[in-house]
Structures are given as structure tokens and as C-alpha cells.
């Protein structure tokens, strides 16, 4: 039993729904009690879909238990088939139905429906949403992808986009452009955008481009094994990764590496003098492993930020993330406990967070700006405009999105020069964010609920009033860093009382 307040991932059957909802011609019959239909609103409200997810819920009640829940399932299955006439059905159980052990797969099989029926085993009490997407797509490929001849022209599949994905719609467009420029045809985009009959022809492609390993790694490995299709390992988020993907695709396909980079503005925007102020901005990065790792590389190598924290909530990808964190010289944070993440962010006192909707809220509480880079998402992460993360335009979007929450270059200097001017007060926040000034940290945020073991020496430090006052003159967006650096410095020096002098000695020590 684990006490949870907010979760990064839903149960695994929600992952299956994300796969099914992205597709056409597939229907999901879910053995589930009343109430589990809440998941529909994720798609109709957050993603603003104009169609209900293709899911039928059996909606069993207490009075059905022990009597005829199996019949209820069979009836629901038949009715769903009759009404929706899908090309294929997936069937499974939500957490409660898993306990009553009705065997949806066996029951559906016995109905003898004239379409493929794929049974999903998604253990609700040990696995989560991302396992659900990956496993569902893998099972669909296994059941539906038939041996077929390769297309005469060089072609590939794009694997990984699902319903409720962070910018999946737009990423597919960008990656398709990259492939177009290399004369590579897209055979199938899956799961989102495909039909079961399209999955049958997956094997016609020469190779696979995997955009989101969280949703498609198992399927890609199986296709590699069974259909001899190599797959790409680079996730093209950022200019450098985009170039690396183009090279990787060239190597796999034998086509010439060609990147249409006329519209690529991110490198120059980053190099131009106005961006100097971005240098060494301390960012804390948290999300799903793929997006977090990609963001960390872009932050350091393309924006000139300093990555002061890196983590992910999906344990399945902990290993590569740990390796990258090590390379960056930070400790990897692998957790799905949002209180732990909040605590780590408060400790690191970054100037910006790159995170999920959860970190956006944490940032709001702590008064730290945040840009969203990963699921879990909310309605505002589905913009009306084209807003990819991947490819050429994706790199441009990253630059804009990550710079927007920050105080701008000249403004930063003005804040320092005129820090006593009431109009430049902390509460004002970045001038281009009318009405969205960062709020001072709430008292409860200052006292993290889970105390991390801080070195005893730092706990014992005392700020003399004059130093505390001097610290308050430092602009809010660097104050946390100044406090932390000063305390670290004092602890290292064995000083127990921090004076104004200590503060400026620390400043000199950490000067860069």
C-alpha cells in the first residue's frame, strides 16, 4: 500500500485506451465497474476530441458480482461489435475486473466474432499507464502484422504516437518532413492514425522510426526480430538530435543524409547576443525519460543552460537516464512521488523548471518559472497551432517555449541595478507576463513534508540579519541559488555564521 496524492501515470488500461483512441477501426471492450468511464474525459476534454474513445465499459455493479458478470461481459462485447463493426477488438479488465477473474480474453474468444480479438493482460496492481501503451501496441503488432513484401521504394513506419500524447500530432508532421526530404515514403504511422488493416502491412516498410520508446519499444523490437526491420534509436528533439536522426536514417536506409534546414532558426537565435543572458541558467528537468533526456541535452548543448537536476517518473527507463545524469554530474531522480520531486526542486532552487503539468504546479507554488516538456498534460498542452517538439520546427518551438518564462536579458540587468525601485520589485515578475508574476513560496513549501538529510553543518548555519537583508536585495530569480551557494560555501569553509562578507566571498567563489 502506498499513499498517493497525485500520480504521473494512470492505470495500465488507460494506456490501452490511449492506443485505441489514436486508432480508427479498433474497439476496446473493457470489463470495468461504473465510474471507470471517467477516462473518456481525458480524451474529450483535455485533448478536445470530437469523438468518444472507442471503448465499451461493461459497468458491472455490486449486485452482479458472483452471479453473471461474465454474461455481462459477453453481452457488452457482442453489442459493441454489432454497433461499431470494428476491424479488430481488444478486450481486457480494469483493476476491479482483474480481481473477479472473468477472463475477458477467453469469453470474447468463445463468441466466435468474425474479426481478430486481442486479449490484453495488463496487471493493474503492479504496472502503470506507460506499460499499458507499450504492451497494447506490441500485442496489436503481434496479432495483426503479417509477413508482406517490402515496398519497392524505400519506406518506413513511424511508431509511437498515441492519444493524449505531448505534441504527438505535430511531431509526426515534422518527422514526416524529415523523411520526405530524404525521399523516404512513410508506409504507416502507428498506433495513432492507423487502422488494424494498416498494422497488417507494417512489414512492408524497410525500417521503423521510433519517436516515443515509452509507447513503441517492445513493438519495434518485435518487428526487428520477426520482420527484419531495424529501428532508429535517436529521438529528434533539438537541432543536434534532429541532425543525428537524419544521419541514423541515412545509415539504415542507404539514402543520402539531407536536412532541409532553411527554416531552422534555433541555433542562430541561441547564438545571437540577446541570448547571452541564458548562459548558465540553472534548470531542473523532470518528465518521462525520453523527453527529460532529450531536454537535458538541448538545455546544455543548445541553450547553454546548466542542468542542476534531472529525473523521470517511469522506472522502466531509469537506466539510460541514470547514465545521462551521471554524465551531467547530477544525481538522477527516479520517482513517481510528486512530493519527492517538489522537495528536490526546492532543494536545487533552479531558475527554471522543464517538467510536466505536475512540475508546472510545483513551480507555481515555489515561484519558479516552468515550461512543459512532457506528459502528463493538460488542456493547455494541446494548442490549436502547430507546435511540435521534434525536427526543425520543434527546435524553434523549444527555443521560444523555454525562453518565454524567463526574465529577459536587459530586464535582468535593470532589476539588478534598480533593485530598490518599487516598480522592479520581486513581486512584479517578468514584464512580458502581465498578471502572472511568480508568487512567493507558500509557507508549507518552505517546510518540505519529507525532510531530506541535509548535511548537519548546513543546518547549523545562521544568517546574521544584515546578510539576510543583503540577500533580499538580490533579484528573486537568482536568490535561491545565491542562498544555496552561500550556504555551501560557508559549510565548506567551516563558517557557522553568514555575514554580508561571507555572501560576497561566496559570490566571488562561484563567479563564472
Amino acid at each position, binding site marked *: *500500500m*502506498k*499513499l*498517493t*496524492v*497525485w*500520480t504521473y*501515470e*494512470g*492505470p495500465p*488500461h*488507460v494506456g490501452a485506451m490511449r492506443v485505441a483512441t489514436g486508432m480508427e477501426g479498433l474497439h476496446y471492450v473493457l470489463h470495468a*465497474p*461504473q*465510474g*471507470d*468511464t*471517467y*477516462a*473518456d*474525459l*481525458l480524451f*474529450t*476534454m483535455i485533448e*478536445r*476530441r*470530437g*469523438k*468518444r474513445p472507442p471503448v*465499451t*465499459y*461493461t*459497468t*458491472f*455493479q*455490486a449486485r452482479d*458480482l458472483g452471479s453473471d458478470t461474465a454474461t455481462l461481459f459477453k453481452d*457488452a462485447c457482442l*453489442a459493441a461489435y454489432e*454497433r461499431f463493426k470494428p476491424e479488430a477488438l481488444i478486450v481486457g479488465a*480494469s*483493476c*476491479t475486473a482483474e*480481481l*473477479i477473474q472473468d477472463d475477458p480474453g477467453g469469453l470474447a474468444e468463445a463468441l466466435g466474432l468474425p474479426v481478430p480479438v486481442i486479449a490484453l493482460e495488463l*496487471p*493493474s*496492481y*503492479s504496472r*502503470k499507464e506507460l506499460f499499458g501503451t507499450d504492451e497494447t501496441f506490441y500485442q496489436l503488432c503481434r496479432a495483426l502484422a503479417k509477413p508482406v513484401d517490402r515496398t519497392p521504394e524505400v519506406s518506413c513506419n513511424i511508431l509511437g504516437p498515441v492519444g493524449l500524447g505531448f505534441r504527438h500530432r505535430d511531431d509526426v508532421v515534422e518527422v514526416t518532413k524529415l523523411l520526405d526530404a530524404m525521399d523516404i515514403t512513410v508506409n504507416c504511422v502507428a498506433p495513432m492514425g492507423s487502422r488494424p488493416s494498416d498494422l497488417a502491412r507494417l512489414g512492408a516498410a524497410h525500417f521503423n522510426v521510433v519517436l516515443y520508446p515509452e509507447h513503441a519499444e517492445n513493438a519495434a523490437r518485435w518487428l526487428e526480430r520477426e520482420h527484419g526491420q531495424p529501428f532508429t534509436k535517436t529521438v529528434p528533439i533539438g537541432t543536434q538530435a534532429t541532425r543525428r536522426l537524419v544521419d541514423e536514417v541515412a545509415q539504415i536506409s542507404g539514402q543520402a543524409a539531407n536536412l532541409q534546414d532553411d527554416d531552422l532558426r534555433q541555433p542562430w537565435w541561441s547564438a545571437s547576443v540577446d541570448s547571452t543572458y541564458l548562459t548558465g541558467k540553472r534548470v531542473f528537468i523532470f518528465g518521462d525519460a525520453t523527453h527529460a533526456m532529450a531536454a537535458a541535452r538541448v538545455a546544455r548543448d543548445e541553450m547553454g543552460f546548466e542542468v542542476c537536476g534531472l529525473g523521470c517518473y517511469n522506472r522502466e527507463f531509469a537506466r539510460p537516464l541514470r547514465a545521462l545524469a551521471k554524465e551531467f554530474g547530477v544525481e538522477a531522480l527516479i520517482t513517481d512521488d510528486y*512530493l519527492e520531486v517538489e522537495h528536490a526542486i526546492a532543494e536545487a532552487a533552479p531558475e527554471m523548471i522543464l517538467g510536466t503539468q505536475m512540475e508546472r*504546479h510545483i513551480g*507555481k*507554488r515555489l515561484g519558479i518559472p516552468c515550461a512543459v516538456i512532457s506528459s502528463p498534460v*493538460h488542456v493547455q498542452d494541446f494548442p490549436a497551432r502547430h507546435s511540435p517538439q521534434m525536427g526543425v520546427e520543434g527546435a524553434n518551438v523549444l527555443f521560444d517555449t523555454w525562453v518565454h518564462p524567463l526574465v529577459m536579458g536587459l530586464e535582468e540587468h535593470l532589476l539588478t541595478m534598480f533593485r530598490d525601485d518599487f516598480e522592479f520589485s520581486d513581486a512584479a515578475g517578468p514584464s512580458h507576463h502581465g498578471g502572472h508574476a511568480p508568487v512567493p513560496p507558500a509557507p*508549507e513549501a518552505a517546510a518540505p*513534508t519529507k525532510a531530506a538529510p541535509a548535511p548537519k553543518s548546513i543546518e547549523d548555519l545562521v544568517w546574521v540579519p544584515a546578510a539576510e537583508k543583503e540577500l533580499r536585495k538580490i533579484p528573486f530569480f537568482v536568490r535561491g541559488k545565491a542562498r544555496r551557494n552561500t550556504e555551501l560555501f560557508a559549510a565548506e569553509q567551516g563558517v557557522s555564521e553568514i555575514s554580508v562578507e561571507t555572501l560576497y566571498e561566496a559570490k566571488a567563489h562561484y563567479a563564472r
Partner: protein
Amino acid sequence: MNDHTPLGCNAAPVLKERGQHEVFCGLTGIIWLHRKMQDAFFLVVGSRTCAHLLQSAAGVMIFAEPRFGTAILEEGDLAGLKDANDELDREVARLLERRPDIRQLFLVGSCPSEVIKLDLSRAAERLSQAHAPNVRVLNFSGSGIETTFTQGEDACLASMVPELASTDAANLLLVGALPDVVEDQARALLSDLGIDNVQVLPGRRADQDPEVGPNTRYALLQPFLGDTAGALDKRGAQRIAAPFPFGEEGTTLWLKAVADAFGIEADHFDRVTAAPRARARKAVAAAAQTLSGKRIFFMPDSQLELPLARFLTRECGMEAVEVGTPFLHRAIMEPELDLLPGGARLSEGQDVEKQLDRVRADQPDLTVCGLGLANPLESEGLTTKWAIELVFTPVHFYEQAGDLAGLFARPVRRKALLAAQPAEVTP
């Protein structure tokens, strides 16, 4: 208010349906209950799905560390119930240590905890003893196999009734969790009428919970509190039957029933209510211009459907095509059914696909439905009103009558505003 349409709906046939229910489970009630009861914590003993439901239903509305959480059952807990109980005790102890401000803890049963027969009432007894006198531990079920949406509040309040202190005083008990501002308005109105010994279930804090006894009379503020009413009856309290205080008419009839029970003079009643009644009528009239003559279809959701259909038909000039309710509690709804004009199709329970077929056939001007159905129906060209807003918004009593009508008028007005550009919907 004496204009009872002769043909009410009490004798009308009710279409009873079984099939896919597109409704929330009772856990959802925690989202408003935990804000109402400021020293209470709601601990759902359930699965990741329960936690995800609460998070999705609450959305961005609240992101302070909330006074609710889910103790997520893991594989080990399913293997042995003894271990699950130990785990629960440990999690509760940890929680109460972290939140010393908590005075009442509700253990909330879920589908999985019901199916594995985890006995939360015994757990509550055990934990009550362990943490007395600082914390009172109660339990109720918000599981989807037993409760629908607002029934969670009913189960919660019913669980509190046996614990309420006894009294012989002739007090008035208002039952239902309303926003504080609305509750204060109700108290002020009752005080002006001369009824002062008024208490509310639930109290805002544990030490403000009401007392109950044989001289207690109680009035329901919400139509979905059948079990709570039953529990109060067992304590000897007497229910004041009335329509629910929605709209000018509903509020007046509700107040009148209470006033009559307390022997308030009719003249005095009229004097006290005249001004707010006039205000409410004026406010409703503004929205009624938009709503008059429009046809409305209620999908089952909160059990507020019947009283709202009564308000919208009688005060806003709408025509009810179908009034669906997840559960029809006849005894409580009788005054509402008497008022509801005949002609509406009444339905109880749901088979969502069949009901959507009826919506498409009826082509109502406004469909009241859950969040999962609203955008899909809009994309088919229908106009919808999210039902969940009706339980999250102050809508009771005179001063909110105009707001209540406005909630229904807004989507209709918006559709008219955007009419110049027919929506092109990307599914």
C-alpha cells in the same frame, strides 16, 4: 407558487435501463467534501485508477496539497488481508503524523477494496481507538459498484449520523454540503423568519457537527441524500418534505415548508421573502429570455436532474424532452414530481448508447451530460451543458437562481454567437 400543473409526473411511467453507465463513481464527491470539511482527510483505499479518477475529475481546480489521497493497493496487499490491514494502519499513522491538523479521517471504500472484502468499518473502529481523542475515524463506500457520483456524499454524511451527539432540543438541521456563502445565506433567511436553532450536516469542522434527537426536524438541501435521510430517521428526527431550493419557486416552497413546520406566520413569511423573491425572479427572467421555448434533455448524472428540470420548465419556459436520473428516490422526489409538467420522458439508470440514439432522434436544443459526452455531442452539432458544473457551482436559494439559469443559458447564447461560423470539427 400554488400554480400546480394538474398533471404532474408522479404517475408517469419510468423507463428503466441497464447498460453502460457514463457517470462518475461516488469517490468524486470527495472533491467538494474535503473543501467543505476543513479538518477532515479522505483516504481512499483503492487502486491507481481511483487516484487517477480523483486527479482527472479535480483537474486543475485544486492543486494545493489536498486533504485527500489514495492508499494504492499493491500486489502484496491482495495476497493477505492481514497484511493489508497492517499496511493501512501504518499509512494512517504516517499520514496523521504528517497532518496534525486533521480531526476526522474518512476511510473511503472503493471497488477493489469492496471486492477483496477489506473491512473498513472494523479498520475505522480499530484506528479510532488508536488515535482517540484527537482523531475520529469513520468509513463509507464511494465505490462505483455501489455508488453513483453524488451518492458518495450521501454515503459520507450517512456515516456521520450515528456519531452525532444526542439532543432533545427542537433544532432545525440542514442536510447537504453547500458552499459556505450559500449556507450563510440560508441561515440568514431562516433567522429573518425567526428560526434560529439551525445546524448543518456536515459541519465545517468536527466540533461544529450538529446534534440530533427526537425533536429535530431536518430539511434536505440536495436530492441525493436518501441514505442520510434514512439514518436521521433512525435517530428519531423528522424530515420536512419539500421541493429543493432551486430557483425562486423551489426556494420559496422549501422555505415555506420549513416555516410551516416551525409555525411561522404567513404574513411574516411573505414580508421576509418578498424582496429576495423579486430579485430572484428578475435575475431568472434575464436568462429565461434565452431559454424560453427551448427543449432540454438530461442525461443521468447527479440526481439533480428532476429538480432542475422542474426549475427550467416552470421558471424558464423550457420543455423537458427526457429527464434521466441515475436513481429515482420516490419518497424524496414526490414534491418535485408533483410539480414537473407532464410530457417529459422519465428514465432511470442508463444504457448510454441507446440513450445517445434518443438524443440524436430528439435533437434537443440543450443536452445536460457528463464531460466524456459533451464535446462529442457538440461535434455532432448539439449544444451541451456539463453536468458537473452544477455540483461545483453555488446554485441554491434565491441569490443564485439567476446564476443557475445562466449556467444553462450560456451554452445556448454561445452557440448563437458562433452561429455565423459552423464549427468544423477535427475528431
